[in-house]
């Protein structure tokens, strides 16, 4: 009895069987995502380090308060909440596509992949608008570097920041804040863009019956893992940039 158990657990790792009952591709997708988590983690932690080292820091409620077609209305966090909701919903439609794939329901996969792609494009469009808007306010990589003029940066800080602090550190803090903002949301946006491209590929393969011929829809699952990861990263970007 016990020897049989030992032989059994040994043979699991002797090849010919998957000990985790996962395919090579799916395991490697997990390990890729883990390494990507460290890349994003390093970005966000360096943002935190610089923020901790700065006497003052822009207030998200002051920086992110615009909404498309709302003119100068003061709507803090509203637009980014919409973006977050769009990305969560597109993650949901992706799980539904994966589930339809499990059931080999080709029509279902096509329908939910279309919604997922649409969600991804909607998110990217929102981000493009937000970047355009902030750029319009003078923000960009390297902006405010040598700013002695406080007019462009004053509006990014809470009213409680002292005038002296604003003169001494305002431009420098805003400079660092936006360097991190554009780098991190840009890196995330590039992930979303790649995800949309992969999702379009999956959609085309599904419509051409590639997975029906293969006998399984595992590619949908692998792209699904990537897409959920992109949503997961956004959850942290949202907290670090817009809430904390």
């Amino acid at each position, binding site marked *: 009895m016990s020897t049989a158990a030992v032989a059994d657990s040994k043979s699991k790792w002797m090849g010919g069987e998957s000990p985790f009952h996962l395919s090579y591709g799916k395991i490697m997708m997990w390990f890729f995502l883990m390494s990507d988590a460290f890349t994003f983690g390093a970005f966000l932690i360096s943002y935190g380090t610089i923020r901790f*080292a700065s006497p003052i820091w822009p207030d998200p409620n002051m920086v992110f308060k615009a909404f498309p077609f709302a003119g100068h209305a003061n709507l803090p966090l509203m637009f980014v909440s919409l973006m977050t909701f769009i990305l969560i919903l597109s993650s949901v439609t992706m799980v539904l596509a994966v589930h339809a794939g499990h059931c080999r329901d080709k029509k279902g996969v096509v329908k939910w992949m279309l919604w997922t792609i649409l969600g991804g494009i909607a998110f990217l469009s929102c981000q493009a608008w937000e970047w355009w808007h902030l750029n319009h306010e003078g923000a960009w990589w390297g902006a405010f570097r040598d700013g002695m003029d406080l007019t462009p940066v004053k509006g990014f800080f809470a009213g409680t920041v002292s005038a002296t602090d604003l003169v001494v550190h305002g431009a420098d803090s805003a400079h660092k804040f936006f360097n991190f903002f554009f780098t991190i949301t840009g890196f995330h946006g590039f992930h979303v863009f790649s995800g949309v491209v992969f999702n379009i590929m999956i959609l085309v393969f599904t419509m051409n019956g590639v997975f029906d011929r293969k006998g399984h829809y595992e590619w949908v699952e692998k792209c699904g893992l990537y897409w959920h*990861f992109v949503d997961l990263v956004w959850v942290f970007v949202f*907290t670090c940039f817009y809430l904390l």
Partner: protein
Amino acid sequence: MGHFSDYEADQSRLYNMGHHEDINSPESKAKIKSIWKVTGILTIITIVEVGLGLSLADKMGDYRWVLNLGFIILTVAKAFFIVSNFMHLGDEKKGMKLSVYIPLALFIWFIIAFLSDGSFWLDISSNTGLSTPAAKIETLKK
């Protein structure tokens, strides 16, 4: 059967090819229901976060860290729901779960080490004036 190269090339054995779920079965419907339930939870958490951010962010004073702790707990809760439900890590074998979670534990060191480095730097520079560019000190004097 069971030859290594088979396994590399053809992963279909990991799928129960002869037997697959029916999209209209009760099990399938229950799964879809649970997906929408998680969606609801994620949406509610996000609404709570935004609500807290809008109503309390500038009223907490010295207790801002309590609010921040709340944001971090809610964020980790969201991350947990996404990873375990949407990415199905909760359904994987224990060894697979551990080989993802254990390396991620490095983040505990990563965050503590670097944030404390940041606050140490602020401490030094505000006590020595090193963070203030000379030109700006001149402006202040005027």
